[in-house]
Each structure stands twice: as structure tokens, then as C-alpha cells.
């Protein structure tokens, strides 16, 4: 060991105090915790998520700062000015290190904004703002997680917003303090717990309005890094001013009110969606039926097409047929006229020749006729003379001529001549014909026979 010393520790402690007090005076900002007072001084810790420094302040310096009543309390964001100090202790008291604050004031918006801006720049540079925004957000989640204060308007507003959506899914609450230094770690834990549940599809982090100092937990670097790395989309609705807290930057969606957060968590307006779905059903039905109907009509038109074409063709053909017929009739007529002219010529010649022949024949016939007539007259005269001879002979044999001479002709009732007595006696009746009429008689033999037949009857 070739180090200097050994030195008496008390002397070293004083030397250390001197060295500490030589260090540059600075301003620090952070949240106050563990506030306490002794007779002469106040002590507290100033901390943020990265670390802390024990602070002491003489009471007369504190009074000079004229802080509002009760401002030095746990959770307050303060800016202090001073430098490191070392109390070397004594034989009876313990040594201690502290930051000796000579001035103190409440952290203002400007301080917080400056710090926020630095953090924002850093996280943006690391690409942490984009991670959540790349996550797919379901339009219709069935279960959402919510991190908020157990009491407060934010919870009520969120529920009202969800109800207005017509959404009736499940809300899983993870209540956490939303203001003070415990808030950020509690919120981060709640978010991680919710994100670990597989059924949770989106998470809302919400808190009502307040000053930037009130909302400071939502600018916590650790919390914001946690949010950025979650695999479930986070919707932030912190305070009333958009983009005032860092969590708004890293979240998937930043909203200005819990009501808006409800709409972002359930992007689908379920009531409107039901109406849309009805319209879709109607459109589908229309298209389905319309497609068939219009095609059927089209098909019908197509089916009629050939018939129409056929009809057109048929009309065309008919027209042609008429034309051909007309043409052929004209042709026939022409030929007919020609033939008629020829025929007329031929016929008139033939007629003339026939007439000449006929005239010659008539003349010949005339000549023959005259001769014929003469011979015919002769023949008639001869026949007439012969006939007269025959008539005379015939009259001589006519029975009528005999009756005229006083003879009687016996006949049957039917006019058949009865030419023998045997025949006459066989008849029941005989008609006698005289020249001037007829008389019916009954032969006597027949009479006797008849009376004999009658008497033989019993």
C-alpha cells in the first residue's frame, strides 16, 4: 500500500466538506418527498424516475422563498438552487451528505415544458412514438381495459361514450392513482397487467383535466417507455389539452376527453354498423336477384334476337320471291305475248286453210246431199207404200176388227185371252169383251162345283 495517509478521519471529513462546497451551484427540479423539519432546517428528497438527491434548507432561506402555504409537501414539483454540501458530523452526531438549497420555488409550466420537451425529443429520436401507432386497432373489440382513478368524472364519461356507441362489451377496470409520484409506476403496472390478458384488445388510460404539474405522472419517462413497448394499443385521454403530456405522444391514439377515448377504443359505431349491415344485406339481395333478373331479360332479348333475325331474313326472302315472281311473270308475259303473236299468225293461217277446206267440203257435201236427198225420198216413198200394204194385212188379223164384226173375246180378269172351254171352266170368273165393252160372267160348271163345295161343308 503506497497510498498517502493514514489521515485522521475528522480532518478528512472537513476537507471533503470544503471540496463539496467548491462545486458549482446549480438548479435542480423534481418531486418532493419525505418532507421533514428540525428546529433550524427543513429536509426532503427531490426525485424523479431516475434518481434522487437528499436536500436540506435553512428555515430562514425557506421563509425568504415565500412559498404558498403548504407548498412544500410530498408530491410537489419544485425547482431548487444550491450546491452539494457535506456535514462531517461530530463526536455525537452522524455525518451526512445533502444538497444545500438556498432558493426554492414551485416548478412552473415553463420548467416542466422544458423538461418535457427534452424527454419528448429523446423518445422521438428512439422511435418510441411510432411503435404503438403501428399496432392494428380492432374496430370492434369485445373487451377493453381501462386505467383510471377509481373515483372521478373520467370513468363516468368513458362509460357514457361507450354506451352512446351502442357497445355492450366488457370493460376491465385497473384503477390506479393518477397524480403524485406513485401514479406513474402504478399506471405502468396496471397497463402491463391489462396487456397480459389476451382477451383485452385495447387499453384506455384516462384522467380528468389539471395543470401540467397535476398531469406530470403521464410525462414519466419510464411509464412512457412502457406504453411504447406494449403490444396492445393504448388510447390516452389525459387532461383536456391534446399533446400536453408525453403519454399522448407514445400512445396509439391521443384523445382530448374520455368520451373521445371511448370512440377511439371502439371505432365502430355499433348502431350505425347495424344499419350499414342492413344496407349491405339489401345490396347483396338486390345484386343477387338483379344479376339473375337482368341476365334473364338479356337472355330473353338474345333469344328473341334469332327469331327477329329469322323474321328479317324471311321478309327479305319473301320480298325476293315476290320480285322473282314479278320478274318471271314479266318474262312469261313477254314470252306469252310473243308466243301469242306467233300462235295468232299460225292459227289464222290454219283457220284460213281450214275454212278453205271446210268451204270445199261444204260444196262437196252440198252436191252429195242433193243426190242423197233424192235417193232418200225414193226409199221413203217405197217404204211408205210397203207399210200401207202391211197395215192392210195387219188390220185383217186384228182381233178388234173381229169384235167389230160381232165376235166376243173371252179373257181372264187380267186380260189374258181364254182360248179353251177347259181353261174357261177352271176359272171362277170370265170377262167377255164385246166391241162396245166388257161383261164379267161366272161359268155354270164352276157355279155347280162351288155350291157342291158349299153343301159338303158341315
Amino acid at each position, binding site marked *: 500500500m503506497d497510498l498517502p495517509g493514514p489521515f485522521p478521519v475528522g480532518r478528512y471529513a472537513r476537507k471533503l466538506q470544503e471540496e463539496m462546497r467548491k462545486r458549482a451551484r446549480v438548479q435542480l427540479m423534481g418531486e418532493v418527498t419525505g418532507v421533514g423539519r428540525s428546529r433550524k432546517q427543513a429536509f426532503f428528497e427531490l426525485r424523479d424516475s431516475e434518481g434522487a438527491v437528499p436536500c436540506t434548507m435553512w428555515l430562514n432561506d425557506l421563509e425568504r422563498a415565500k412559498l404558498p402555504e403548504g407548498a412544500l409537501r410530498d408530491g410537489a414539483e419544485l425547482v431548487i438552487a444550491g450546491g452539494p454540501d457535506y456535514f462531517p458530523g461530530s463526536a455525537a452526531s452522524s455525518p451526512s451528505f445533502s444538497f444545500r438549497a438556498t432558493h426554492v420555488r414551485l416548478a412552473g409550466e415553463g420548467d416542466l415544458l422544458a423538461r418535457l420537451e427534452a424527454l419528448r425529443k429523446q423518445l422521438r429520436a428512439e422511435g418510441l412514438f411510432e411503435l404503438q401507432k403501428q399496432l392494428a386497432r*380492432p*374496430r*370492434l373489440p*369485445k373487451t377493453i*381495459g381501462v386505467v383510471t382513478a377509481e373515483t372521478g368524472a373520467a370513468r363516468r364519461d368513458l*362509460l357514457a361514450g*361507450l*354506451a352512446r356507441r*351502442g*357497445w*355492450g*362489451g*366488457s*370493460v*376491465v*377496470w*385497473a*384503477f390506479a392513482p393518477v397524480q403524485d409520484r406513485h401514479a406513474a409506476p402504478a399506471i405502468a403496472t*396496471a397497463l402491463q*397487467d*391489462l396487456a397480459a*390478458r389476451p382477451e383485452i384488445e385495447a387499453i384506455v388510460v384516462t384522467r380528468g383535466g389539471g395543470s401540467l404539474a397535476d398531469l406530470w405522472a403521464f410525462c414519466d419517462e419510464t411509464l412512457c417507455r412502457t406504453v411504447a413497448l406494449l403490444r396492445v394499443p393504448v388510447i390516452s385521454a389525459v387532461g383536456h389539452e391534446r399533446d400536453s403530456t408525453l403519454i399522448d405522444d407514445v400512445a396509439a391514439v391521443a384523445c382530448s376527453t374520455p368520451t373521445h377515448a371511448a370512440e377511439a377504443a*371502439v371505432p*365502430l359505431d*355499433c348502431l350505425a*354498423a*347495424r344499419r*350499414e*349491415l342492413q344496407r*349491405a*344485406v339489401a*345490396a*347483396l339481395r338486390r*345484386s*343477387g336477384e338483379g*344479376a*339473375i333478373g337482368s*341476365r334473364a331479360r338479356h337472355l330473353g332479348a338474345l333469344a328473341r334476337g334469332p327469331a327477329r333475325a329469322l323474321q328479317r331474313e324471311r321478309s327479305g326472302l319473301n320480298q325476293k320471291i315476290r320480285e322473282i315472281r314479278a320478274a318471271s311473270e314479266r318474262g312469261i308475259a313477254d314470252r306469252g305475248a310473243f308466243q301469242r303473236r306467233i300462235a295468232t299468225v299460225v292459227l289464222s293461217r290454219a283457220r284460213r286453210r281450214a275454212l278453205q277446206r271446210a268451204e270445199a267440203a261444204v260444196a262437196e257435201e252440198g252436191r252429195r246431199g242433193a243426190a242423197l236427198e233424192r235417193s232418200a225420198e225414193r226409199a221413203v216413198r217405197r217404204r211408205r207404200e210397203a207399210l200401207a200394204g202391211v197395215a192392210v194385212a195387219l188390220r185383217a188379223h186384228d182381233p178388234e176388227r173381229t169384235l167389230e164384226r160381232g165376235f166376243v173375246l173371252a179373257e181372264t180378269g187380267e186380260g189374258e185371252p181364254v182360248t179353251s172351254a177347259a181353261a174357261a171352266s177352271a176359272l171362277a170368273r170370265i170377262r167377255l169383251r164385246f166391241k162396245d165393252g166388257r161383261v164379267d160372267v161366272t161359268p155354270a160348271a164352276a157355279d155347280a162345283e162351288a155350291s157342291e163345295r158349299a153343301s159338303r161343308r158341315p
Partner: protein
Amino acid sequence: MSENEPEQSTRAEPDSYESAVERLEEIIDRLDSGQAGLRETLELCTEGRELVNYCAAELDAVGEGLKELRLDELAAKLDSQAA
């Protein structure tokens, strides 16, 4: 035969409400364009009706009234179910 059936049934099953609605809008746009042939139209209508049924079921799932529970209750419920 049994190998083909699951394939057909998964074809029309959308993975989310938004993808179902997106596809449904595509289908209706296509149908409204009047460019789809008859077979395609009928297929689109069938697919559309399946999507509508899916969407209606999804809406019904969140249509029964809002349910609230705390994260610790959810954990307890799941634990008791597991037990």
C-alpha cells in the same frame, strides 16, 4: 372428402370485423359496378351473406349490454375457472 371440408369452411371465415367489412365493401363495389359475370355475382353474393352473418354475430357479441369487472376480479374468475 373430410379433407376438403375444413378448407372450404375456413375460406369464408374472416379474421376480424374490419377485414370482414372491408371485404364486404369490396364485394358490394364489385357488384355495383355491374362488371361481375353471373357466376362471380352469385359467388360474391354467397360470400357476402357469410360475411354479413359473421358481422352480425360480432355485433351481437357486444350487443347484450356493457359488463364491468375489475382486473383482479377477472384474474380471480379465470383462476376459479382454471381450478
